[in-house]
């Protein structure tokens, strides 16, 4: 049905690039409209804000995309983000060097991802269920650790990071680039990326071709857990607290960004640039609605409608383009 992906091979590349362009065009269109309709949108300051606001969901969406390409889903990412803020905050407050604290937090994310892989591969659980269970439990564990309290991080340098910019671009957005480029190379130009697609397309065929399907699945969830833990570190830096109830619902935002970016929930279709664009489209909608002082309730309605419209037209294009 769907003509698809693997952007890197030639005719595909043109095609996918085109889709990237369609989305990019949408994003630019939104920007132009907002620049014309509000005085403040196009200010350097606001653009910085916008980049910051979209960054975290963008990184989550990239991790989520790896999982979705294999035909799975990771509902736990929001909970992992919240949990990671707690871990990072506790470690930093315990006086552990920031660098080490971040490393340990990332390893926790990796461990959670490995656990998901284990549940899926060894225990035969559906991804939806194992990650749903983690979502539930992880918030509980975080709440136990903090007793419902927020942990105030007593390290100003750590907090400065997410506020500052480098070459005029907010550090948070640099982090998107830091994640995005290796992710792009990994997904579109390495054999591991190729295996993510092949497993999502036909796990049995991949296995028969000698692809280590189990390892590929472990890898996808580990990367998603890693991205989520990384976002947790960034969030801890940005809001300066560790709190396990934060980032609630971000999993759905990440999934929505990914799908808006052209990822197919049936697996085997997706890219890295798509989810990034998807996340910034959603961030722009929220930013614009705030600037225009649109009622918060309308924002929800508009977001829902836009998700339907974008995914519908993407589907049309996909079928038509065949």
């Amino acid at each position, binding site marked *: 049905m769907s003509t698809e992906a693997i952007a890197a091979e030639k005719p595909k590349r043109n095609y996918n690039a085109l889709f990237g362009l369609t989305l990019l065009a949408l994003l630019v269109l939104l920007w132009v409209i907002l620049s014309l309709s*509000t005085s*403040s949108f196009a*200010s350097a*300051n*606001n653009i910085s*804000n916008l980049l910051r*606001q979209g960054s*975290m969901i963008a990184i989550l969406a990239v991790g989520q995309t790896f999982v979705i390409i294999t035909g799975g889903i990771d509902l736990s990412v929001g909970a992992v983000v919240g949990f990671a803020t707690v871990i990072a905050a506790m470690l930093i407050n315990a006086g552990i060097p920031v660098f080490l604290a971040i490393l340990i937090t990332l390893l926790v994310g990796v461990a959670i991802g490995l656990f998901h892989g284990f549940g899926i591969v060894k225990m035969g659980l559906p991804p939806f269920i194992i990650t749903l269970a983690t979502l539930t439990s992880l*918030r509980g564990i975080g*709440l136990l650790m903090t*007793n*419902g*309290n*927020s942990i*105030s991080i007593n390290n100003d340098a750590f907090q400065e990071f997410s*506020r500052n910019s480098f070459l005029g671009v907010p550090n948070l957005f640099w982090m998107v680039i830091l994640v995005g480029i290796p992710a792009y190379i990994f997904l579109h130009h390495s054999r591991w990326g190729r295996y993510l697609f092949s497993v999502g397309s036909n796990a049995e065929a991949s296995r028969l071709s000698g692809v280590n399907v189990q390892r590929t699945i472990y890898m996808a969830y580990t990367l998603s857990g890693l991205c989520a833990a990384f976002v947790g570190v960034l*969030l801890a830096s*940005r*809001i*300066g*607290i560790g*709190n*396990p*109830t*934060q*980032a*609630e*619902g971000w999993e759905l935002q990440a999934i929505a960004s990914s799908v808006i970016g052209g990822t197919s929930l049936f697996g085997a279709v997706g890219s890295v640039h798509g989810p990034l664009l998807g996340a910034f489209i959603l961030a722009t909608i*929220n*930013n614009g609605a*705030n*600037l*225009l*002082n649109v009622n*918060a*309730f309308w924002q929800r309605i508009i977001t829902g409608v836009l998700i339907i419209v974008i995914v519908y037209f993407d589907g049309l294009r996909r079928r038509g383009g065949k």
Partner: protein
Amino acid sequence: AEVTIPIIVKDTTSFYWQIVLAGARKAGKDLGVNVPELGAQAETDVNGQISILENAVAGNPAAVVIAPTEAKALGKPIDEAAAKVKVIGIDSGADSKAFTSFLTTDNVQGGRVAADGLAAAIGAANGGKVEGKVALITALPGAGSLEQRAQGFKEQLKAKYPGLELIADKYADGQATTGLNIATDLITANPDLKGIFASNLIMAQGVGQAIAENKLAGKVGLIGFDSDEKLIKFLNDGVISGLVVQDPYRMGYDGIKTALAASKGEKVEANVDTGANLVTKANMKDPKIDALLNPKLK
């Protein structure tokens, strides 16, 4: 057997309610009462709280202390519970005449106090002129106490501070980050914004971050509600102009104490106001205020 008096709060995952529980725990220890600590996991989970109340009553306790999430919705279940045990209300009201005693902070009053605090902060920053644009950020739609704070805030602005114009009344989704984003965008859209009321703990954390991030401490007044370490730090740094602080610890402690007395058939006061105080950098060292800011947890 030991006397059991469960306490049911609105949201066990929030720090504010943890302080209430800590007060109740201390009372239990002091008075030799077993105090199960119950509560929903979100202020909006009305049905969950009803179930918890039903379960608590099923355990045949001496009395029940409850902070109703929703006045109307909890009315009937509280009537029903009161038919079996004494019910003590804390924090917020419910449509029930069955409370034996009621210890509350008036959230509407809290909103008024916040408006006063914001007006004072704006005045101080602008050479005494209390005018300009202000905004209100509410953590979640549909939570009764937050609606009451908003109501009090808006009433007071209208009544006492005609110079302050409420240009935005925004709802977030309970996430600090969303509060941060909304505040950033409001500041961007309204460079002349003078003040923000962030009506609960988590919003104050997010909005405080936005003000710190944009280096607007002292230029944009911010009033928060409730306190924790992070907010006190903001207060110290001048990022937050003031916090409306209730006395959750006392609510918990006195709730259990009153409940025990009531269960023994002693006469208790029907209505107790535990008060809402405005804390600023100036008064935060007061012993009384300091006790509110640093409740003895555990």
